[in-house]
């Protein structure tokens, strides 16, 4: 009963909506405003036309995927040092959501590449290293699923999460270190001061904040699912002990 009570607690106190619900509402409103900004406020690119507006999804999604794997990195370190389940739960949730985001970064990039580069895919540095990043974190999730025990899966996954994070700066710097067809960074240490029109930069920033909220909400949902999985595991264990 304690487990279901803890789940009910997460539903809010005294009729007030839970933090998760508030987060969902804020994210929903921000996303609507973001779409308005993208389609009604952001100027049309003079060379690429309207298809350039994919930029306002593609870039924030990619940045959020980097952040997700940074969270996995820190949480994995925390778990290996402290061995408390909370660190592992955050790492797991962030990795799964991170895989969703890097998948989207690849898909939106592929779709955008077709009209701009006249190809769906090319084995150039940015795309290749991003594909490697996707494979690393899919492997992270598979290691969890196929480990002999849950605790071993958490340890193995933490190691993958720490070592795999090496690819994140490689993805970012790939367009600087190697000859690449992919555009240079527009945010971060290698972005030029005049890389973006002022309005475009503001819309990009708002889109990034929107996706940060979306990421936080998705991680909160995934962590609640994990809590429910653990509660189910506990109740099944109790029933097995009682011979049912």
């Amino acid at each position, binding site marked *: *009963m304690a*487990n*279901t009570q803890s*789940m009910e607690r997460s539903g809010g106190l005294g009729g007030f909506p839970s933090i998760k619900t508030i987060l969902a509402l804020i994210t929903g409103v921000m996303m609507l405003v973001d779409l308005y900004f993208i389609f009604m406020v952001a100027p*049309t*690119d003079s*060379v*690429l*036309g*309207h*298809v350039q*507006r*994919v930029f306002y*999804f*593609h870039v924030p*999604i990619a940045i959020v995927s980097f952040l997700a794997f940074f969270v996995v990195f820190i949480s994995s370190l925390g778990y290996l040092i402290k061995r408390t389940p909370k660190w592992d739960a955050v790492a797991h949730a962030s990795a799964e*959501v991170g895989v*969703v985001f890097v*998948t*989207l970064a690849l*898909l*939106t990039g592929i*779709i*955008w590449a*077709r*009209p701009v580069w006249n190809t769906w895919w090319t084995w150039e540095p940015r795309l290749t290293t991003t594909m490697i990043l996707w494979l690393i974190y899919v492997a992270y999730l598979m290691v969890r699923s196929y480990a002999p025990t849950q605790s071993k899966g958490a340890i193995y996954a933490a190691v993958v999460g720490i070592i795999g994070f090496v690819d994140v700066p490689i993805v970012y710097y790939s367009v600087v270190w190697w000859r690449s067809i992919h555009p240079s960074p527009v945010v971060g240490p290698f972005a030029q001061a005049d890389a973006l029109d002022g309005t475009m930069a503001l819309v990009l920033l708002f889109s990034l904040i929107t996706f940060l909220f*979306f990421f936080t909400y*998705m991680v909160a*949902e*995934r962590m*609640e*699912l994990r809590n*429910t*999985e653990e*509660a*189910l595991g506990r*109740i*099944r264990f*109790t*029933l097995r*002990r*009682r*011979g*049912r």
Partner: protein
Amino acid sequence: MLDFILLSSHLPSSNLPYLFAAFAVSWVVLFGYLFYVNRRQHEMKKEIARLQNVLDQTPEEE
């Protein structure tokens, strides 16, 4: 005087299907994942409620 022929496939406006596809794929993936998580959550909560009923009817071991 040279006459230039502008190929319609090179007009920026001809790329609108790709713009639509990119946003559509984004929504499908994001909301598809949220739907998947919520559905699993719902199924597990039903299972927990069912097992809790069984547990309440099962005497504790002495």
